[in-house]
């Protein structure tokens, strides 16, 4: 199954049930991020942008474990999650290039991707902000009588901020249907986890809230999905939140300007040997879902699609000036376009 640029976020999300599409999506994430890096060099991207190459299995593993009307909050390091959840390459690249085809119409930028149709809240640029918001989404899901869950994705460094603690405690005492996913990529900006956090595993902190804490191989999309399934099922059953820690790694530096020279020699290489795309491709090969040259073919296919999306973005205009004032409040010209979650 191949998903074209013109497919809707929802269709792209549904397609993720297919194992080959899961692989394809991981490749797409990698490809889109590579393209974004190039677009930065070419002067199409402003501000900063945070790549998550190496973490694709986490994104796809999560996305395939929840439904499009489950809610996700995540961070500025959100390209992968957005794509996995269903946002189109043009939607992501477009936003980062500040064009109208962007998923936030160019108002948000790299740190603020969004797609209500697949449950993606605006990604937050303030550390920890997404966790309480996910609690609220979970609370609303329950109050409105649905069995929807919320997933809060955040980094290892973010596990040291107050909002982490308050949210886990609040969710636990309220038994909220929320899954806290820590992407432990060993670094918060330029600081290795051991220099900011006195424990190796964020998951141990689950005990402070009497909730399950799981440690997961974040390079293996199946393991990610498995762990998510357990936590999500628990949440849907009304048994409360979980903390799931994905051990992963970002190949690039923190943001575009970071050469990541602070990493110990050999660390990156060791992680590259456990590349999530390769791991999953091998698995699909073993499952006879992927031919010998299937991976290369997929990569070429995806690269072409990403180029097409990029062309579409670069053809797309910047927003009208009126957009500045159109979505400030209900009184603004943009008016009411409210997305209704779980309508009827």
């Amino acid at each position, binding site marked *: 199954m191949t998903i074209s640029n013109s497919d809707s976020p929802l269709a792209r999300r549904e397609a993720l049930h297919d194992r080959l599409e899961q692989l394809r999506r991981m490749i797409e994430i990698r490809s889109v991020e590579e393209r974004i890096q190039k677009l930065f060099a070419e002067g199409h991207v402003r501000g900063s942008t945070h790549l998550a190459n190496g973490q694709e299995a986490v994104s796809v593993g999560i996305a395939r474990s929840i439904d499009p009307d489950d809610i996700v909050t995540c961070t500025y390091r959100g390209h992968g999650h957005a794509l996995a959840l269903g946002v189109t390459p043009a939607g992501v690249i477009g936003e980062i290039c500040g064009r109208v085809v962007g998923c936030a119409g160019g108002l948000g930028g790299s740190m603020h991707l969004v797609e209500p149709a697949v449950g993606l809240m605006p990604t937050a640029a303030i550390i920890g902000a997404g*966790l*309480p918001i996910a*609690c609220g989404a979970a609370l609303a899901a329950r109050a*409105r009588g649905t069995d929807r869950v919320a997933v809060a994705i955040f980094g290892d460094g973010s596990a040291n901020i107050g909002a982490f603690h308050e949210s886990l405690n*609040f969710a636990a005492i309220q038994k909220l249907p929320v899954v806290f996913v820590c992407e432990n990529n060993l670094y918060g900006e330029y600081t290795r986890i051991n220099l900011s956090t006195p424990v190796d595993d964020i998951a141990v902190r689950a005990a402070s809230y009497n909730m399950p804490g799981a440690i997961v191989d974040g390079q293996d999309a199946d393991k990610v999905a498995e762990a998510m399934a357990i936590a999500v099922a628990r949440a849907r059953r009304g048994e409360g939140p979980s903390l799931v820690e994905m051990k992963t790694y970002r190949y690039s530096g923190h943001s575009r300007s970071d050469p990541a020279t602070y990493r110990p020699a050999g660390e990156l290489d060791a992680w590259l040997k456990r590349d999530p795309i390769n791991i999953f491709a091998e698995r699909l090969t073993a499952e006879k879902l992927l031919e010998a040259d299937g991976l290369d073919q997929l990569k070429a296919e995806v690269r072409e699609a990403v180029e097409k999306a990029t062309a579409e973005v670069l053809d797309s205009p910047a927003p009208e000036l009126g957009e500045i004032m159109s*979505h400030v409040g*209900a009184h603004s010209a943009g008016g009411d376009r409210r997305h209704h979650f779980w309508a009827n």
Partner: protein
Amino acid sequence: MAKIWIRQAVLRALDDAMADDPSVIMMGEDIAAAGGPFKVTEGLLAAHGPKRVIDTPISEMAFMGAAVGAAVCGLKPVVEMMFIEFIGVALDQLTTQAATMRYLSRGRLTTPLVVRASAGAGQGFGCQHSQMLDHWFRGTPGLKVCVTSNARTTYGLLRSAIEDPDPVVVLEPRILYAEREEYEFDRTYRIPLGKAEIVKPGKDATLLACGAMVRVALEAAASSKADIEVIDMLTLWPWDRETVLESVSRTGRLVTLEEAPAGTGWGAEVVSTVAVEAFGSLKAPPHRITLPDAPVPYSGKLEARYLPNAAYVTEQVAALVSTNKAPTPWWRNAA
């Protein structure tokens, strides 16, 4: 007409809002089982159940943020910040997250939530439990701020705030909770956000106030020789330029009565706007009556002086009206 405590107007507004709209929920510390630290949520738990009236742990960031998430997902959360100072540990969720949600989603996600908090001085709660702090919110694009002043405005503003499609902060002067007043509830009564009210017409000067200062303004007007027009601002952001400008154009004099140090008070915004828009129609310089530039003192003697009272306001307004010069605040020389 029945005499009620003003805190009953809070309770009634919340109760009616919850009854009228099943999507309204409440969150806060000790608001449910205990009926609220100021007893303004008494009975709501029994009436609406624990899924809608939620006691939270002491974690303002968590429940303020939960309100944001819940609002986006179809609820209308009303958050109680017991004392407005407490949002100092959670401001991000309101001003940075809630207020930008609509913008960042181009109108697809909105946060119809209310933060209500007790605020203000006068009761000996000390400097960390006695401020208005509206300046933390005022002017933030996407956010509204209003201040209640009696039973009627409490009911009218709270109901409007809860029905508003965007985030609203409602500051409730704590000192008024235990005041009694004649008021007949009308379930349909609303005060439109963004509108001020002329609560006493007058010809010689326009005296603007909000919150607990409204009654001080009215007392001052009542005991003034000059004919003072008193306006209750009600909403501090966006504030009612039209009503204020129209009044000033008639009276030719403007005095603001603010429960805040001058550097943080809402009067700066109003006076500056009037200076721009009504330049020429002023007979005297505008004048701001504010708190001194100091934290709220505890000792009763000091707090009584710290807060403007009717006699002081009367005196200040009289000086302005009679000399057309702005009088000096008492604390300018004391500093």
